């Protein structure tokens, strides 16, 4: 072994060490983040009871009534509404982009989607305040601030992300499959329903779950049009509060160190676990598919 080679080996070891230390730092910080959440949440649940907190709907933080059931319901409703709206449009955009559009349309569509997916959530919230809230009020459906408005804004916000991912999933169906299907006498509709959608199902599910996780975790766009009512359920067109918006609202009400601050950790952990559950199933989907 000559000197040059020895120094190369040494520098390989040194750099591998540097890389390992950096990733160790990353793991520590992220692990610590989870630990903080879990500790806070466990401390709170031990005091207030798990079931009681999750299923109750009374929220008076300063009076010590800390039940988050209503926020879970509102989160679920707003998200479901958004997904229900975004799903058909997103699939349509994906089908149009990958199977129908010409080169020119495809490029324009791609740019709009890329730009729209990076538009800040406060900008969508701004649009919600400027257009959706007055619109719903104009229809005579209440004050305009409410679950439906939030669902609409959120649907629009996740549409670009979902469309792009679904588009990629459909594009992954190889050209020879299309040709084989058409050569068997499939018309374009049958080709989409019987081949394209089933064959890209794993990718479409991943797209759906990614969008779902994003919708559940969104705070600002929802907060701006939701109205922030916590006392009881006011119906779909009435105001409400989700887990994310309520954490934001009560960070000031329940400062760190105050006795009931732990409920915020609890809510954050519920959110985090929910999202992890979604992306967890997604991981299995992706892995189950394997390499082509």
């Amino acid at each position, binding site marked *: 072994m000559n000197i040059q080679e020895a120094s*190369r080996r040494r520098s390989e070891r040194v750099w591998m060490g540097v890389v390992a230390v950096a990733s160790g730092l990353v793991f520590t910080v*992220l692990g610590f*983040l989870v630990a903080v959440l879990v500790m*806070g949440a466990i401390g709170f649940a031990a005091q207030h009871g798990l079931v009681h907190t999750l299923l109750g709907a009374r929220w008076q933080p300063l009076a010590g009534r800390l039940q988050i059931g209503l926020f879970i319901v509102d989160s679920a409703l707003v998200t479901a509404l958004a997904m229900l709206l975004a799903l058909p449009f997103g699939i349509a955009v994906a089908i149009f982009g990958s199977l129908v559009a010409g080169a020119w349309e495809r490029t324009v569509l791609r740019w709009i989607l890329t730009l729209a997916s990076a538009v*800040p959530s406060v*900008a969508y919230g701004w649009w919600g305040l400027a257009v959706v809230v007055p619109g719903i009020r104009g229809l005579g459906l209440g004050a305009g601030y409410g679950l439906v408005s939030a669902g609409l804004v959120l649907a629009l916000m996740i549409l670009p992300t979902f469309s792009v991912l679904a588009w990629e999933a459909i594009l992954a169906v190889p050209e020879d499959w299309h040709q084989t299907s058409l050569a068997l006498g499939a*018309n374009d509709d049958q080709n989409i329903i019987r081949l394209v959608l089933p064959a890209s199902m794993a990718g479409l599910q991943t797209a759906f779950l990614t969008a779902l996780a994003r919708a559940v975790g969104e705070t*600002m766009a929802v907060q701006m049009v939701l109205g922030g009512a916590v006392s009881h359920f006011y119906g779909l067109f009435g105001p409400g509060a989700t887990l994310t918006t309520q954490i934001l609202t009560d960070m000031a009400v329940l400062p760190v160190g105050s006795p009931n601050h732990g409920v915020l950790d609890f809510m954050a952990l519920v959110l985090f676990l929910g999202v992890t559950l979604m992306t967890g199933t997604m991981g299995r989907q992706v892995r189950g598919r394997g390499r082509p």
Partner: protein
Amino acid sequence: MMKSGKHLQRLASVATLAAMVTLLWVIIALCREGLMHWHWWVLWRRPRELKAGGGLGPELINTLSMVALAECLSLPLGLATAIWLGEAKLPRRVREGLDGFFISFQSIPAIVVGLVAFEVLVGYFHWPLSVATGTLALTVLNVPQVVVFSRQAMAAVPDAWREGSLALGATALETVWRMVLPASLFALVDQLGLSFARLAGESALLIFTAGLNVGPHWGWFQPGETLAVHLWQVRTEGLMPDRAALAAETGIVLLAITALAIFGSKVWSLRLKAYQSGPGGGGP
């Protein structure tokens, strides 16, 4: 029986058109409102709480500096982690588990990171709501994203190239440094632009870490309100008489930063890719 069988395609075209019109509506409405009242001085004037004529100069500087700093911190950390995940001798299951860990962290709600950053940095270490606090929170939010997109970019480099480099006597890290990273640079650059745009638009995370005010001058421990937070605050709680125009103007500046980051990185990335694949194509 329908003979043509193109009903779905027609339906998809109409739905796509509707969706694009609505998305463009958001962007155009914001631009229209902002441009109607556009004043160049908003770019450098300081904000005013109760009077008209305030600007967003400090917010602009805060946004650019905090996002740039957060990228400078999270890029090396994320890249190093991605390299370690790729090159360390780990059992397959462990590697997949760690990848899954980062994938689930990738979609962690920003408000959750904000809450923990608030508890630890502000609550425990008694840092003020400031540029430094906000930057660290942004870094924590961004690192998992960087890890995931770096892993994907590097995994897209054909194994044959890697083997070719190893067969020439390169070590594992030399291969990463001299072959894998340059070959995946275009994908990394592309993602960097998206990541910059995402951080610049972040607000939920920053309200309780960077704060809702600006200091008299830029400083690590000065309050560090950003454009996105400013837009939210002005639009929902603002007291100045020209708040509607100011919110839209803030939105325009924010959109411009976002668009510049994306378009810029796209152009750069496409150039890199064109250079790599050469005139005849044949790249990855």
